[in-house]
């Protein structure tokens, strides 16, 4: 493995940052503005993709930007895990940008220029987090992302979004400043470095209670991961326009949270260190509780996006659980799930948004018989929900397969039970939606039997993501290879 010095990672971060002035200045011409969004998004995706061969070849690409203190620079480094996440985020950003046009124009939303600008800032920070070489840089982008998302969450500027915005900030900023920041400085105080290294930066001399406290500070501190009890910002953040919920609160923001936890588990503590300290089980336990409780809560949610939000909280903890299993297959499964869940869940959010644009309905109880009115959307919904439940032929099956193998590998039957129970719960909260959409009598149906879908710009993206979820079952290679490569770096086998 060698480190290739290149400014490509920096360009990938900067491209959507630099386009913001252009977006703002072309605010009065929406079509020009949107073209710029696409140009920047495409360039970003291409830059990320161009580094894929090098990373798959076992190399890392990176550069140091600023020297802050010994062992704590602001530096970017693309490794397999970062590449996996960046690929997912940058490709879905393009699709979401298309969806945004359909959604925002379909609803004639105000402040669209502000919206696309902060969206670009958020995706910049996401890629930055993916490519961070050390904890300091990761924290930097994590905070920028928190703040860039605030105007998106509160986009409607009404009383409800104000309250949700407060909750969002309290949880996200409160935990990152209150827990992650001191934990990070504590780590630096102990070890003198914050670099993500394959085997972690701690030595075995560390006392177990201290390691435990630090670990918990990180796991709860990265509240974007939605680990209970720091999860309730996510359902609140559903007041945002649906593209925000779709990309940020199913992919970018929340996955930066779990990504950070995975990074800390693998790069700061180290898999072997945690196994030796026997701390993985603590995190796995916390994640399991979150999985089961949130899935149970999701059952009772009638608002479509809130049900999806609780489902997301559960699925995010799958990723944390995977990493906490500390077995090669488990960690692979966790990382794969970053990608598989992203494509599946974004499809579901796109569906929720499309239904809202087309019919103005937000509650599941008002969607009986919607399948006849919006068959394409609801078919995509079906595929997406299969992927979340983890059934073939969708990508979600692959990651869940690895997770299950991981529990067997580590001989952790309780976790296996958690995973299987959660799958049942997932099916229990998604299948009725699909069932009621198609299987109802004419009297029960709330919609006419006439096809009337949302605007094309809304429908095409959800078809694309549903198709990708389907294709990933047969061709999971880029993500699977990256995950396997990353695991090799962490466990060193």
């Amino acid at each position, binding site marked *: 493995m060698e480190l290739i010095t290149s400014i490509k990672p920096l360009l990938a971060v900067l491209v959507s940052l630099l386009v913001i002035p252009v977006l703002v200045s072309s605010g009065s011409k929406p079509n020009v503005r949107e073209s710029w969004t696409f140009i920047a998004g495409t360039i970003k995706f291409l830059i990320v993709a161009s580094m894929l061969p090098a990373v798959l070849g076992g190399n890392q690409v990176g550069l140091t930007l600023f020297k802050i*203190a010994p062992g704590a620079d602001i530096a970017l480094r693309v490794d397999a895990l970062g590449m996996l996440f960046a690929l997912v985020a940058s490709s879905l950003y393009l699709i979401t940008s298309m969806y945004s046009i359909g959604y925002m124009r379909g609803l004639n939303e105000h402040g669209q220029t502000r919206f696309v600008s902060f969206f670009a800032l958020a995706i910049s920070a996401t890629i930055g987090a993916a490519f961070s070489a050390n904890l300091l840089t990761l924290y930097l982008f994590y905070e920028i992302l928190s703040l860039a998302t605030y105007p998106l969450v*509160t986009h409607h500027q009404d009383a409800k979004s104000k309250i949700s915005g*407060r909750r969002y900030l309290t949880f996200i900023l409160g935990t990152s400043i209150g827990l992650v920041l001191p934990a990070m400085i504590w780590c630096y105080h102990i070890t003198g470095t914050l670099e993500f290294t394959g085997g972690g930066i701690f030595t075995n001399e560390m006392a177990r209670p201290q390691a435990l406290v630090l670990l918990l500070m990180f796991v709860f501190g990265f509240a974007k991961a939605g680990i209970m009890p720091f999860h309730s910002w996510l359902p609140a953040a559903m007041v945002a326009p649906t593209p925000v919920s779709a990309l940020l609160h199913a992919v970018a923001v929340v996955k930066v949270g779990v990504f950070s936890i995975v990074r800390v588990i693998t790069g700061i503590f180290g898999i072997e260190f945690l196994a030796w300290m026997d701390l993985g089980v603590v995190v796995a336990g916390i994640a399991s509780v979150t999985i089961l409780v949130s899935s149970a809560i999701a059952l009772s949610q009638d608002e479509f996006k809130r049900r999806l939000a609780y489902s997301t909280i559960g699925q995010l903890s799958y990723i944390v659980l995977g990493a906490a299993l500390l077995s090669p297959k488990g960690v692979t499964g966790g990382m794969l799930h970053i990608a598989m869940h992203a494509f599946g869940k974004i499809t579901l959010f796109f569906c929720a948004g499309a239904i809202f644009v087309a019919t103005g309905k937000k509650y599941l109880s008002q969607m009986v018989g919607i399948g006849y009115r919006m068959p394409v959307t609801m078919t995509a919904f079906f595929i997406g929900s299969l992927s979340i439940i983890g059934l073939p032929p969708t990508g979600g099956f692959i990651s869940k397969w690895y997770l299950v193998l991981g529990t067997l590998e580590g001989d952790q039957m309780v976790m296996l039970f958690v995973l299987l129970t959660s799958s049942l719960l997932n099916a229990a909260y998604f299948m009725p939606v699909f069932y009621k959409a198609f299987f109802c009598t004419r009297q029960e149906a709330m919609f006419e039997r006439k096809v009337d879908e949302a605007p094309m710009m809304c429908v095409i993206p959800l078809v694309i993501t549903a198709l990708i979820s389907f294709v990933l079952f047969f061709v999971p290679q880029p993500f699977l290879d990256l995950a396997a490569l990353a695991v090799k770096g962490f466990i060193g086998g």
Partner: protein
Amino acid sequence: MNNYPAIVVIAPLLGALFAGITAWVEDRFTYPIALTALGIACAAAVADLCIVLTHGPIQYKMAGWAPPMGIEYRIDALNAMVLVLVTAIAFLNLVASFRNVQQETPDRTGAFYVMYLLFVVGLTGVVSTGDLFNLYVLIEITSLSSYTMIALGDKDRGALASLNYVFIGVIGASFYLLGVGYIYIKTGTLNMAEVATMMPALKESSAILVAFILCILGVFIKMALFPVHVWLPNAYSYAPVGFARIVAPLMTKVMVYAMVRLMITVFGLDYIFNTLDLAEGVVWMATIAILAGGVMALSQKNLKKMLTYIIVCEIGYMVGGAWLGNTLGLTGAILHIVNDALMTFALFLCVGNMVYRLGRVDISDLSGLFGKMPWTMAGFVLAAFSIVGVPPTCGFFSKWYLILGAFEAGAYHFAGALLISSLICAVLFFKVFEVCFFEPMSEGHGHGHAAVTMEEAPVSSLAVLAVVSVSLIVVGVYSGTIVDTVILPFLK
């Protein structure tokens, strides 16, 4: 020998003299004179810094008189940096505040610029001098000019706030002077370097202990460390905006500089941390100052007042950091002198812009400001994040060193106070943002509301704000360089 160290102080002094004379004839001429004087001072300060960084400290004997009779200016990496900071902010503020001065004190612009220059004379002198008594004189020049300026401000309350400040300021100055008296009795010299050489022999002297305590108390009062901060909020919020913009970022920071100078150059860290047993108490005081400042800021309804309490809180950062007794803490404190000056300057620039357009800045008056003054608000948001300590703005990096220093010293209460104050500041500023962002919108979806018309501040003020905002990030990401080239060599 070059004369840059003298020029930094003399240029504004001569400027004040000329401006004072011309003001009798025509007020309008004072502005270009002030601008030129501060431009020269700023250039000389930059030259100083370059020389110090390449050739090491400069010793400058005023008028060629050797110490202990003469006054010595001693410029090392630390005060060279602070001098650049002081003169640059003074110069930039002059550019930014032209319209504000016209608006607020239309019939006294001449007096304003003369006092402004004298204030800068005092600040640069305090930072340059290597003489304990001279330090007193210059602190008083600074203070006297600010008493005058504050009295020029708010018609109803400016004078009272100024009087309040005079009373407490004089007490602080007397403490310091008394302390210097004791030092002179014991050592027979007022030159800082010479006092320092005699310190090891005087470790056990109770007179020196009293001198130390008196000097430090005097400086604490002048920098408004809680609970002797009571003069500051009123004085700074009723001052004319053009002056508040410079006194708020610089006055307290220069006093922190004076404290660091007394601690390191005069009494010596060995004496303070190994012989005396005060450090822990002072760190506790700083901890309380941080929390008290934050809590009091929470209860303010006026934006200017809120910011002044944040200054009280930030003073706690620097005092605590300096008294942690390790290099990391001192590094954080010194770095924070620079960072806090820049952040506070940026915030007060924005407040000045708001005052210029709105007249008053109660937080409830700020609704819809993101639409009305987008550039000002952009700068305000960035500066606020810096106060909160969000990377990559500079506020994060000094906080990083301070917390690291607190961990090393085992002062967990201080680290905790720093974190809590970050959270409090986040609440404070988001309270303001909420008013600016949400208020004009009625309930519902917010569609199709009338477009808000833009009413920005003067271009000169916005340009300065842009420069300062960029510097918040640049200074932040280059803080490693600042620490390596300026602070660590100084602390060695």
